[in-house]
């Protein structure tokens, strides 16, 4: 048996922090790519994430009528396609007209999109809570047995293992895309230096499409993982995730997908660990302030080191 500190710390603070961090990380990838390539802060990203989760729920419900029980990770695939269409549609009708105009216009447009998408989801699906899977998630018995034998009891439910695995797969796929494929290299080039990329004859429109597709996949995954974790869908979850995701993107450096992943994990861990009783028995920071941790990190980063830890773009 390992000491009480280790057991509680790992199971109740570290692992939940990592789970949250994975979700933030996936969301932040989309934000950082949009910010880097299209050069604006997309306030509607959280809502896209949320609508991805609702679409996944719908796919599961339709399959349920047909007598099929789909795992959320399977139902996510068709939902992702719809989210990508939604992303491309918003871009075409609401963001593209401002591409040559002031950045501020397109940020305002995304602010408006945030409102439109959220209200549309509320009108269509209603305000009641929905859920993928009912009941409570018991820890994975194999893992807790094995870890117990070596003296460090790990209690991780299956849903968390899925989230970890899913995040790792998506990040590996993303790094393959960015490092090995033509379009990925073009995306990095545009993000690093748009003028230079333009001169070298990169098809910027194609890069923008690719950005939305990658962002859409990551956003849907983040939304679905969040709902798998919380087991509850509600319409304001997107907005509540938005600022921590911005914080993650800024922490990692704008335009740096790996930075976003790192930033997401840091923000997720910081939120959870802030409530750990580091000194004495009471939480270091009242849990009422937990959401403030991400904002505080974000504001401090913006002031101290706006280019982020990974030397992203600084405007």
């Amino acid at each position: 048996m390992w000491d009480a500190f280790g057991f509680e710390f790992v199971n109740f603070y570290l692992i939940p922090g990592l789970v949250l961090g994975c979700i933030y990380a996936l969301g932040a990838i989309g934000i950082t790519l949009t910010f880097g390539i299209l050069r604006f802060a997309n306030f509607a990203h959280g809502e896209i994430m949320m609508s991805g989760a609702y679409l996944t729920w719908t796919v599961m419900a339709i399959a349920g009528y047909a007598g099929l029980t789909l795992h959320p990770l399977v139902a996510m695939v068709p939902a992702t396609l719809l989210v990508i269409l939604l992303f491309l549609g918003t871009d075409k009708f609401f963001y593209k007209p401002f591409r040559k105009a002031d950045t501020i216009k397109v940020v305002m447009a995304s602010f408006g999109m945030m409102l439109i998408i959220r209200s549309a989801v509320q009108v269509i699906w209603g305000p009641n809570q929905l859920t993928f899977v009912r009941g409570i998630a018991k820890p994975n018995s194999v893992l807790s047995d094995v870890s117990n034998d070596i003296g460090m009891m790990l209690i991780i439910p299956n849903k968390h293992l899925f989230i970890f695995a899913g995040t790792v797969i998506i990040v590996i796929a993303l790094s393959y895309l960015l490092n090995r494929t033509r379009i990925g290299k073009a995306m990095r080039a545009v993000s690093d230096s748009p003028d230079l990329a333009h001169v070298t004859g990169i098809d910027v429109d194609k890069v923008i499409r690719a950005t939305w597709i990658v962002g859409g996949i990551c956003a849907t995954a983040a939304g679905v993982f969040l709902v798998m974790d919380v087991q509850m869908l509600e319409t304001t979850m997107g907005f509540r995730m938005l600022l921590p995701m911005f914080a993650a993107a800024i922490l990692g450096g704008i335009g740096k997908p790996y930075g976003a992943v790192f930033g997401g994990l840091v923000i997720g861990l910081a939120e959870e660990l802030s409530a750990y009783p580091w000194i004495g028995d009471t939480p270091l920071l009242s849990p009422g302030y937990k959401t403030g941790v991400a904002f505080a990190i974000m504001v401090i980063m913006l002031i101290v080191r706006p280019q982020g830890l990974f030397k992203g773009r600084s405007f």
Partner: protein
Amino acid sequence: MKNVLMATAATLLATSAMAEVNIGNPMAMTGPIPDLNAPIAAAVDLAAANINAQGGMFADGETLNIIRADSACDPVAAVDAVTKLINVNGVTAIVGPVCSGAAIAQAESVAIPAGVLTLSVSASSPAITTMEDGTDLVFRAAASDAYQGVALAELAMANGFTDIAVSYANDDYNAAIAEVFVQAYEGMGGTITANEAHEPNKASYRSEVATIGATSENLALFSYYGSGGITLMRNALETGAFTNFIGADGMLSDELIEQIGAENLMTSTFTTSASDASTPSFAAWKAIADEAGVPASDPFVANGYDATFMMALAIEAAGNDGREGLSEHLRAIASAPGEVILPGQWAEAKAILAAGGDINYEGGAGNQDFDENGDVAGNFSKSVIVDGAWAAELIQ
């Protein structure tokens, strides 16, 4: 577009011109608790439907019309909505605001200055008791937290909990009741091992649960089931941090059973302001609610029905849809002396009132006798899981 506007304007004018009794019903349709609000709104509509099916209002059977507006649990929206209800729709009285903040704001800002009676369905903040300066215009059909917090502390003592950890959602309702509970429980000699707020609607409460879970086996949880309560409960069960749970009516919902499973809730007890299931008034309410498919024991649903029914009785007793002096009639129909009227007995009540008799309404959520502050007394039940469903039992 223009035609639609014209047509709507026409309908608006038409509705106000017909012989109807209008009651304004600002509910939290949007905002943080729309899911909690939906069954309460259904109960308000159900009361109006019952009344209209049994002869309507007054001798000539005017329709009771519920004009719904969105108070969004938000003082800004509530003040705006009630301004419109009172000034544009010309309602006789307000039955509604779900959240305490919205209820106080609309009353202080609009309803009291306009001399309009407010009967809240679920505002439970202790601040409402003392908010009026000499007017008698704010009533509520739900007991103040000042009573329920004490009842819950007594329940914790009766269950043999000598120490308990408290976690409350940081919103107006839950913070208020948690404070009363902590005071009462410590006054009875119990030990509060931890008392922490949690932010509603977070994705995970594992760290909160773990931090306070180390201090006690018992958790007093104050939260809305729909905005974090279920998640916190689930996290607490998944991590095994607590064995026993108690809480107030914000958590009491069939949704909790559906999402977490009855087998996991065997050690949970939640209080609510209701008569116990054996009283005839609760049985009458449950029969009506079951027939209409309204969840009878969800938080404040019975209160929503009672409030609408009582307001209609008060207007009926007044004999016209004027706003003056309505509060006296509301007091008269809600308390003894008089023939006991149960939920749904509109025709009976109407006949007695027409004959000049007295009535005493006993609602599904309690006997609904108002004290001098317009509060109803604490009459609480505890609910535990029996055969996979909530079973309520009165606590003394």
